[in-house]
């Protein structure tokens, strides 16, 4: 079981309040991702749940019991740190065994769980090595192994992939998602990378300056961003946000349209502009269009290989049903 509830939780460091009163419900077995720009309080929030920081006021409940004053080790949560935080003087086996040794689990059971975790994480051949002799991805797996053997109520991940290179990151992302499906344990995952959030989460919590901007499934957030911040943060490339005349014509303060929801043409369309940089990915082509009279740059995504040269005039037509309208307060209209 791993249901976590935050009620009116706040956190202040001295005079500065980093987490204003905040409520959040995380269901058992859910993969929840905290996402937001750096300094938005997502790591602090995770550390509050872990118990590594004391909350200033409010209540944290884990499976219904008040865990606010329970020390981190007794909360039944396991954490995977950004730096992996492996113990460098212990072998992989001893690293994984450490939490069980601290809990006084008998040796045979320890051995059984180590073998099981090592098999699940492809670490069997490395059990007698030191962390210093492993690659980044292997260290990451050892850190996860150390978390798994505790059989926790929930896993907490603090930007676990940010120290890995791009290719490994994609691989580990899949492994962690696979692990979640297999264990069906609650996981809370902190990242600043919206791609990780979109691909892994059952539920995304978008944070800005300690505030929850929106909570929802990845597609909910993609389809119905509650405000311009979420609209700009979720989705890659970013949603185009257009203000001024064109927005006013659509009864909005800000008009949002995703790059993939604009059709391009060389001859006719609702908007036109000059092609700036074109990014050819093979499967898609991204154009950065200038001099549109709408916004400084409009990003457009065209499927496949479309040939426009730098400086060419390009015509763009937004799909009207995919337009997002936001009011002057930044909130979504309709």
């Amino acid at each position, binding site marked *: 079981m791993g249901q976590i509830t935050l009620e009116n939780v706040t956190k202040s460091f001295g005079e500065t309040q980093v987490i204003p009163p905040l409520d959040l419900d995380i269901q058992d077995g859910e993969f929840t991702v905290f996402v937001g720009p750096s300094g938005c309080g997502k790591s602090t929030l995770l550390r509050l749940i872990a118990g590594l920081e004391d909350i200033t006021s409010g209540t944290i409940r884990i499976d219904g019991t008040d865990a606010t004053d329970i020390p981190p080790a007794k909360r039944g949560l396991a954490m995977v740190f950004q730096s992996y*935080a492996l113990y460098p003087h212990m072998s992989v086996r001893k690293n994984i065994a*450490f*939490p069980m040794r601290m809990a006084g689990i008998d040796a045979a059971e320890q051995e059984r769980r180590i073998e099981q975790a090592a098999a699940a994480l492809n670490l069997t051949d490395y059990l007698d090595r030191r962390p210093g002799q492993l690659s980044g991805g292997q260290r990451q797996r050892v850190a996860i192994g150390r978390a798994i053997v505790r059989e926790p109520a929930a896993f907490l991940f603090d930007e676990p992939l940010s120290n890995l290179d791009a290719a490994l990151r994609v691989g580990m992302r899949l492994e962690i998602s696979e692990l979640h499906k297999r264990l069906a344990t609650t996981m809370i995952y902190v990242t600043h990378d919206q791609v990780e959030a979109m691909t892994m989460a059952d539920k995304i919590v978008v944070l800005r300056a300690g505030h929850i901007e929106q909570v929802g499934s990845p597609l909910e957030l993609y389809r119905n961003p509650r405000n311009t911040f979420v609209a700009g943060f979720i989705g890659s490339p970013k949603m185009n946000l257009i203000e001024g005349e064109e927005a006013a014509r659509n009864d909005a303060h800000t008009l949002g349209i995703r790059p993939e929801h604009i059709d391009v043409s060389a001859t006719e369309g609702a908007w036109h502009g000059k092609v700036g940089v074109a990014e050819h990915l093979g499967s898609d082509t991204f154009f950065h269009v200038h001099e549109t009279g709408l916004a400084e740059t409009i990003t457009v995504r065209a499927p496949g290989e479309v040939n426009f040269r730098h400086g060419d005039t390009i015509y763009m037509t937004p799909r009207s049903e995919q337009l997002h309208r936001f009011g002057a307060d930044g909130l979504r209209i309709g």
Partner: protein
Amino acid sequence: MATKASRSAARVMMAPAVVLLLGWMLVPLIMTLWFSFRTYLPLRGGDQGWTGFDNYVRFVTSSSFWPAISTTLVLLIGVLAITIICGVLLAILLDQPMWGQGAVRILVIAPFFVMPTVSALVWKNMFMDPTNGLLAHLWRFFGADSVSWLSDVPMLSLIMIVSWQWLPFATLILLTAIQSLDGEQMEAAEMDGASVLSRFFYIALPHLSRAITIVILIQTIFLLAIFAEIFVTTGGAFGTRTLSYLIFQRVLESQNIGLGSAGGVYAIILANIVAIFLMRIVGKNLD
């Protein structure tokens, strides 16, 4: 960096330092070796020629040799134990954030700046004096008889004085080591259910092991040669005669340079054995 020209330039520039250091080391070493094979009594006939290994045999078979060795080891182990145990604890204490941290750290390091002779005299006259010393006043305040430290518990007194001098050094090295301990490791251990003591023994202490080895190595080399503290406090009496003090007595008090030089060679051998032994341990820790 490694062109032919830069390498030869480097050699030329390093040469004076190397020559100076070699001369500095080799001349006294060779002179010591030379004298150790001669009968050389400055006040009783001067240099009287070769004696072979007589000096070496006499030095070892003298009744004061083994007591001197054991005194040296007792002093060494006592000081090492105190400085490392207290050094680790002090380093952890000083690592905690507190008001006036900078000032406190300088105060802790201060004893290291005091010359050995001065600190030994301060201890002898201000703290350990049986009638006027601070410790005597303290003992009397609690109604106890004052202790004449340097004659009743001479080794303990000596160990206290030397430890006081070397504690700052150990603390300093261990403090820098403890500051490099990854905070996330400690938090991970906390989440893993390790108590404060377990975190100390399983995480902090292994992390410090290399720094501790280095402290042992450096202190051992200096502690084997402790002299001033003994000279100004007990003058080698009450069983405080270490190997280096015995050599001093042979040379200056008995005016037997040959015998003293032979002792010096033994001291060199002893220091080297310890150094090789410790280098091995350090090497193992450096994996």
